[in-house]
């Protein structure tokens, strides 16, 4: 995956570049909005990571101009401003996801990988399959090894989101945002409880676990050991 990091703080930018490289991704750096825009226009990037506060051209204006020129590369906005209205402004400007500083790198990586996946047309996918677990998006039916599994509507949406990102790490915050559409920091382990309920339904009576906990990051659904 090829990522462009537009961030004026050199230390942060280099930290991201190094960390992304370690995760197996290539990252270019731009220190201001104009350079970032120029690079994004010519380069074939999978994801842009854009800081909101940038010299020369601020992050939101840069995204707006890129979108105006037909550049559809997914954008993750980084910002020190984290409230609901800032998020809404960021997404309206054409951003695809929004992350508040300071953030955990695992959170950023999970979101960047999810964004890269989004760029691949997958809306036509009507079935998600992980090993023997099948989720049929048309009939809303879930089976494992052919046996039907009864899920509550919210459990279905949770599983759907996890399976859409099969093989990728999905953080608790991402689940809260995409499955429940909430943007707050819970003080309790609310997501864990829901995931463990789902796990009880899809993994309990089967030999091979599919839903794994990734320590310090979140969850992933995949065929194979953690």
């Amino acid at each position, binding site marked *: 995956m090829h990522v462009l990091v537009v961030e004026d703080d050199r230390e942060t930018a280099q930290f991201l570049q190094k960390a992304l490289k370690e995760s197996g991704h290539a990252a270019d750096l731009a220190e201001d909005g104009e350079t970032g825009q120029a690079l994004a226009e010519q380069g074939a990037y999978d994801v842009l990571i854009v800081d909101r506060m940038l010299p020369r051209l601020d992050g939101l204006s840069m995204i707006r101009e890129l979108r105006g020129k037909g550049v559809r590369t997914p954008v993750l906005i980084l910002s020190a401003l984290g409230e*609901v*209205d800032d998020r809404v402004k960021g997404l309206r400007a054409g951003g695809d996801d929004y992350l*508040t500083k300071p953030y*955990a790198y695992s959170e950023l990586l999970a979101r960047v990988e999810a964004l890269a996946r989004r760029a691949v047309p997958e809306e036509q996918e009507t079935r998600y399959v992980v090993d023997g677990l099948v989720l049929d998006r048309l009939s809303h039916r879930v089976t494992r090894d052919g046996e039907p599994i009864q899920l509550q509507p919210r459990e279905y949406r949770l599983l759907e989101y996890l399976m859409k990102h099969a093989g990728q790490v999905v953080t608790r915050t991402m689940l809260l945002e995409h499955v429940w559409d*909430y943007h*707050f*920091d819970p003080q*309790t382990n609310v997501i864990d*409880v829901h995931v463990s309920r789902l796990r009880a339904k899809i993994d309990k009576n089967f030999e091979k676990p599919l839903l794994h906990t990734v320590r*310090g990051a979140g969850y992933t659904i995949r065929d194979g050991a953690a």
Partner: protein
Amino acid sequence: MALPERLLRAISTTSFRVAAITVATYLAFAGLIVGLLLWQTNRVLTSQVLTTLDGEAQQLKTEAQAGGISALVRAVETRSRSGGAGLYYLADGAGAKLAGNLSRLPPEIVGSSSGGVFRYAPDIASAREHLAVAIPVDVGGGMQLIVGRDVDDQRRFASEMGTVYFLALGFLTLGGLVAGVAISRVALRRIEAINVAARSIMAGDMSRRIAVSGNSDEYDALATNLNAMLERIEALMSGLREVSDNIAHDLKTPLTRLRNAAEAALRETGESAYREGLEHTIEKADELIKTFNSLLLVARLEAGALEGNAERFDVGRAVRDVAELYEPVAEERGMQLDVSVASGPELVGNQQLIVQAVVNLIENAIKYSGKPGANSGGAMITITLEDSPEAVEIAVADNGPGIAPEDRERVLKRFVRLEKSRTEPGTGLGLSLVQAVARLHGGAVRLEDNEPGLRVVLSLPKRAGDR
């Protein structure tokens, strides 16, 4: 020394100056009126006298024309003896006195044609001279006749009047000045009381207040307003002090833990110990970040920064959805979460913030319902929503240990954590955020006794457009 100084201070006050100017203006007008009165009285009296004299002169002239000199002499003599205020002097051409009660010809009148004022001594024994008015009368034959009138009574009356007037003016002046000094000293005393209070407040006694006399005058209004201002300042200051004390505590504790975790990791050897130490360090840093984020959010809400982001939404549904999210959490901890909320009631507001406020209330209920002192029959959390034309009231009730009535106001403040819960994880900002969200929407938070337990009511008014 003290008195002149105090007098000087009284004199230099605004109220004394106002009093002095008032008295002076009043005096000037009073003096003018008195002078005008005296002058007018004099003029009227004098013209009356002159009219009488003219009449008398006419009569005497008639007598002289009819009866000659002897008749005139007789008439003058008769009138002279009558004992009235009339004064007469008749002399022949050579200047010898023929009749009359004046001892000599008043020189002031002799030369004048229209008469005038003169002084004479009515009797030899008395040295006091009387004032009189007289006119010369032309009776022909070279004779000189003076007809006059003693006006001494009138003069005395006028002079007494004048004395009374001036005395009155004197009293007025004195009274005015005394009143001015007194008023200004009262004013000074009230102002001084305010000054004394202000000085002692500046010296650090923030609880000091200005005395209110109860006269409900403008000084009382001023004192009441100043006291209200001081009250607000003191509340803000103590709030600030509380916040900074609590920031010091609540941020220092996780910072210390963070430092300890890092230090402990350094002392260890082996990769897994390092890894564990670092993970622990990051966990502590995340706690700090959470606290900072909450603090910033509360501060921005209190500044009204997010007001523009309102939408119309089904608040019943929003509350039910979020309760549904927490139902398994409560269940896992052996609590019952009872939600009796119907969809339908609509509200204009920031849905994310209102949901977050409800989440804070539910998380608090879950956190504290399991505490010792909680109902032995099993922890129970009840969420209800009351919809009225004016407001939507979301209530989250538990049967935990509750909060003592005297602490209920306090726990809404930033970073305030009751002693019992200080060791619990949490930022101390949960209820402050609920309060800030309520205020942003023009609503309020009420903490009530659930008997047993705590019932927190988030009351959000519907705006005019909602009804």
